[in-house]
């Protein structure tokens, strides 16, 4: 379902999973990101498996289902692009953040993508403990993955932590987690499962009932921010706002590699391709 590219050479037991943000994101949306990384180091990229979470079908279904979401949108703009963007903003944000079913649906899509990665490895004789997953999330995708990782950590079955599943490197780019967290208290929302709403920002954890240790399913968490990216910069995610959940202070840069949009996913991937590849190889 979420496979973008299987390994072209002998598998290094690494799998990269992209999680997209707001906007029209059909299957294959992360191909340009894959190509950016492949140009930088084809041997590492060819030995790695590449998956993506594509949850845009959920948003599309909701746009068709809830008539009024569409009927109020045209006021936001006349051009189809502006209309589409406004629809995505309303449907993606409102539905995901505030209502229960779309949130659970997208969480299920995320969970299924993780299980797909595990299954593919097992089919090649590689147990989950020997697989290494690098998760690269952008924009609302950082929230989707954050919520997804929190929701699975206590699962008694895979991909729960007690079954040995861990994300080795969690890379968040253009991340609005701190901004959303700071503003959630101003709104009442229906979704009481929302971890960001009910707990301080932090890594997903559970207590091992035998060792008594608090363990996380995220080994390392790195955050990246373009200096003028409004989504990530209004209230930036830092060591302080993440309650020291990040492995190190947020990486900040000011270049524009992909046109004038500082928030563009490919802007981040281009800037930090050496770091991403280093994480894959580690």
């Amino acid at each position, binding site marked *: 379902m979420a496979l973008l590219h299987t390994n072209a050479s002998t598998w290094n037991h690494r799998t990269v999973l992209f999680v997209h943000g707001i906007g029209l994101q059909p299957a294959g949306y992360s191909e340009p990101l894959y190509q950016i990384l492949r140009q930088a180091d084809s041997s590492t990229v060819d030995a790695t498996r590449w998956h993506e979470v594509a949850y845009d079908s*959920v948003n599309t*279904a*909701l746009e*068709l*289902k*809830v*008539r*009024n*979401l569409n*009927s*109020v949108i045209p*006021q*936001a703009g006349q051009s189809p692009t502006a209309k589409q963007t*406004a629809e995505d*903003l*309303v449907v993606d944000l*409102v539905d995901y953040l*505030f*209502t*229960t*079913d779309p949130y*659970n*649906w997208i*969480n*299920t*899509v995320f*969970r*299924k993508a993780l*299980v*797909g990665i*595990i*299954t593919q490895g*097992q089919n090649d004789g590689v*147990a*989950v*403990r020997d697989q290494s997953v690098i998760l690269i999330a952008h924009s609302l995708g950082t929230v989707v993955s954050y919520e997804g990782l929190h*929701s699975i950590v*206590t*699962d*008694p*079955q*895979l*991909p*729960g932590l*007690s*079954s*040995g599943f861990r994300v080795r490197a969690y890379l968040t780019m253009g991340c609005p987690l701190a901004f959303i967290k700071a503003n959630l208290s101003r*709104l*009442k*929302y*229906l*979704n*009481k*499962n929302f971890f960001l709403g*009910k707990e301080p920002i932090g890594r997903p954890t*559970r207590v*091992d*009932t*035998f*060792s008594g240790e608090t363990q996380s399913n995220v080994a390392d968490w790195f955050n990246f921010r373009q200096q003028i990216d409004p989504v990530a910069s209004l209230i930036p995610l830092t060591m302080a706002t993440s309650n020291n959940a990040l492995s190190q202070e947020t990486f900040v840069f000011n270049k524009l590699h992909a046109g004038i949009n500082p928030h563009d996913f490919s802007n981040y991937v281009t800037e930090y391709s050496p770091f991403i590849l280093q994480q894959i190889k580690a």
Partner: protein
Amino acid sequence: MLFWRPTLAGVFFIFTAPTLWASNYLFLDKPYLDLTEKIQTEADAQASHFLEKGSALETKYKQVAASLRAQISDVQRARLLKKLKPELVVQTKDQQFADNLNSFKDALNYMVQKSGKSPVALFPSYDEWQKVETQAVSQGLDQRLDAFQTRFGPDSEPVNFIEYFGGELLLPGTEAGPSAWEPIARLSPVQATSAGAAVSSAEAGMNYYFVNRPAPAPLRWVGITNHVGLAATLQYLNNPRIFHFQGRPAFGLTLHLDRKELGASWDPDSKTVRVNIGYAFQVVPLAF
């Protein structure tokens, strides 16, 4: 984006959610339950090497193992009674079972860590067990995705703001899937009526979606696979026209059969029962 925010903020402000977080679901089929019992036997054989006799950890392990074994037996027995196919994955919400399974896995991890060996070296069936577990979870997640598609996909009924947020407020789904129930509270713009060409109807009722199981065979035979519903209707049939709401009210009932609507109303003017048919195609935007 700003234009809608005050309105939505107001809408959300009056809502409070009735549900609590639940994450204790299990996906169980017979092969997985059988292998879990097998792993338990293998773990029992290893426990004495890594858990000191009489220690708190040994006591805890024995409690967890006994409890888990009893729960598996119960589930196996229930499956037999229901004559479920062995490979059928059933989603179960069971806090105690989930906690015991987590604790049992913690115990396995503890023994593996103590031994410095791989899990398979201690428990020969471990990797097969994980593989079968992954298959069961994968099938279970597919069932959940199908349920969401049934409730919100293209075969479901379009809803308005009130129906959508009313459903999310009063009948929210869980991690396991959406609620089967969806409120109907709308102005159905066009219905053909035996009293004339077309009429608009106010409707209030409930739809039931087949999110947890396929539609019953008799419904499938007539092409109904997604949902059924029943709504009380209000129409004005003295001079039937679209969006005409004057005269003596005619009350009735309408069945929702997938997106088709079939109903009957008592016409107080002609003192006859009028038949209505419609389709939730929604060319005309809904009233709300």
